């Protein structure tokens, strides 16, 4: 016997969660783009998508975030710290790769300084993952040692039933158990088979890749120039990545008033490392692409013991010139040693 959430009880679940003070966010297709958005009804959810084009990262680390408001008058300087609204949220239908992405980023935002903006949102959110029932050519979770039903970063794991009429429910964390309790009357005890997981073939050998990256001799390898020749230097791979987290601080306003903001930034941009003097230590696209790969599969691992990639494949899927992590790591795997 397993606990089951029948699909036709989803509307009741949403209502119950809303009554308990939660906003419910789910995959939606709006204005020609798929992302996580607030929903009132199950019919608004786009649960058949393999993956949304945007990640849930956007809701924890928004692309632009006001930090401080300031006002300078004749005798006083006023400043006000702006904090994100205290809002309890449920993310329903998160894919395991995106949920893992949040957990991968946690140590980064809590390392030398606890980023209140990130953790306040993390603490107020419950992640309800749904295991994948389909994968596409770009999915690569298994290559980074995750899986289509990985529970990393999830509070509740739902596994689609083979009949397609509901999900097996497994609470992963305390927060998940508490969430399941709020809808316990809607869940049923049944014997129902979960649908088989999609096959996600291994695309590269991450151990081999890490070993090659760790060899300092390879830092200046010709490989980096060859692999990144067609990179046009946009930031789409970094901004669609569930784990990329770089930002820039900008003051917007004039001498008398303004707002300090935290905005997404990307290591793909030449401006990212441009010094005030005009010198740029990463003055070619190949050095910037190398940085992205090194950061994800070497530096991050060294600092936090985990690779900064959850295998969603968006970097390749949406790349205007068909580049991405998969091809690069495949090429490294196949390099003669």
């Amino acid at each position, binding site marked *: 016997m397993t606990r089951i959430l029948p699909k036709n009880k989803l509307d009741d679940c949403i209502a119950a969660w809303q009554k308990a003070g939660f906003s419910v966010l789910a995959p939606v297709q709006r*204005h*020609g*783009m798929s992302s996580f958005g607030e929903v009132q009804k199950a019919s608004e959810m786009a649960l058949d998508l393999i993956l949304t*084009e*945007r990640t849930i990262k956007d809701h924890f680390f928004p*692309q*632009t975030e006001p930090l401080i408001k300031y006002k300078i008058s004749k005798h006083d300087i006023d400043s006000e710290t702006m904090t994100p609204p205290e809002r309890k949220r449920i993310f329903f239908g998160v894919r395991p790769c995106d949920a893992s992405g949040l957990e991968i980023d946690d140590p980064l935002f809590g390392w030398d300084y606890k980023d209140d903006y990130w953790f306040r949102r993390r603490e107020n959110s419950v992640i309800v993952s749904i295991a994948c029932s389909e994968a596409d*050519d*770009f999915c690569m979770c298994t290559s980074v040692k995750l899986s289509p039903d990985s529970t990393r970063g999830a509070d509740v794991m739902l596994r689609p039933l083979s009949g397609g009429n509901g999900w097996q429910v497994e609470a992963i964390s305390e927060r998940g158990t508490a969430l399941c309790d709020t809808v316990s009357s809607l869940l049923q005890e049944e014997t129902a088979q979960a649908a088989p997981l999609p096959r996600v073939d291994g695309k590269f050998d991450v151990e081999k890749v890490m070993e090659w990256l760790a060899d300092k001799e390879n830092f200046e390898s010709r490989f980096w120039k060859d692999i990144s*020749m*067609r990179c*046009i*230097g*946009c*930031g*789409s791979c*970094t*901004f*669609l990545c569930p784990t990329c987290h770089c930002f*820039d601080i*900008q003051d*917007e306003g004039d001498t008398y008033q303004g707002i300090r*903001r935290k*905005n*997404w930034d*990307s290591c793909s*941009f*030449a*401006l990212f490392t441009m010094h005030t003097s005009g010198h740029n230590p990463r003055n*070619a*696209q190949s050095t910037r692409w190398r940085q992205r790969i090194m950061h994800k599969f070497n530096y991050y691992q060294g600092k936090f013991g985990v690779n900064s990639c959850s295998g969603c494949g968006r970097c*390749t899927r*949406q790349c*205007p*010139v*068909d*580049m*991405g992590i*998969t*091809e690069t790591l495949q090429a490294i795997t196949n390099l003669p040693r």
Partner: protein
Amino acid sequence: MGIQEQYRSEAAELLSSGEVKLVIGFGAGSTADRRRPLFARTPEESEKLVLDQNCIANLTTYLVAGGLLTDGKKVAVFLKPDGIRSLNILIAESQVKAEQVVIFGFAIENNEVTPLEGRSISDFAKLGEKLRTATPPPSVQEEAERLEAMGSSGRFEYWKEQFSKCIKCYACRQACPMCYCRRCIVDVNQPQWVSTSSHTLGNFEWNLVRAFHLAGRCAACGACDRACPVNIPLRLINYRMGKEVKEAFDYFAGESSDQNPVLASFRQDDPETFIL
């Protein structure tokens, strides 16, 4: 011999004779129907060139990237008619020297690839006129008319929604052959002229700045539109700007390589109705 094989062997000849230092074409991509830019420097590498109905990217972008042509050497590039149009604009704007580019021209019609005669930009003089008088793709025209019928407040709402998706990844700029500025205005940060924030104002600023900078310069290749990871229909903006310029100045960007760029030149009989 099919066109792919013909161009492969011609590319190999150009490379082995040293006539060109590089051939920019298409290669196999990460899925069966994806093609990716391929850079062949040796005759062997030119064997990997692919040419079929999936080769839709505008490769002129690479001609103006990273100082590729500054050594004066020649480069060969695979171009569709919209790519040839872009090349005309780049030559007219003195960004590329005509004699440095060997063209492997091709057209895709009804999923069929046909070769275009000629290897130098001067061989394509008639193509410009053909493009000028061609009707734009019905999908773009219909959508543009639908927006036109909305009225200004409806259009404003439409673009507000579309621009709200913008993440300022600048894929549109990076994919565009006309965005060749060494330092884009949004990257000028002492002081910061255009806001880097992706709020409503910042997103409008960026997309409008780009639209204005492309007025009378866009080859309608659709590279920006295809590159946009959040599906903003940028083709509609450029279509509208192109129409505006055509009506005001009877000018079609990229018709020939010896055009005077419309917004960087003047005629004595230019209308002066905007002067109060």
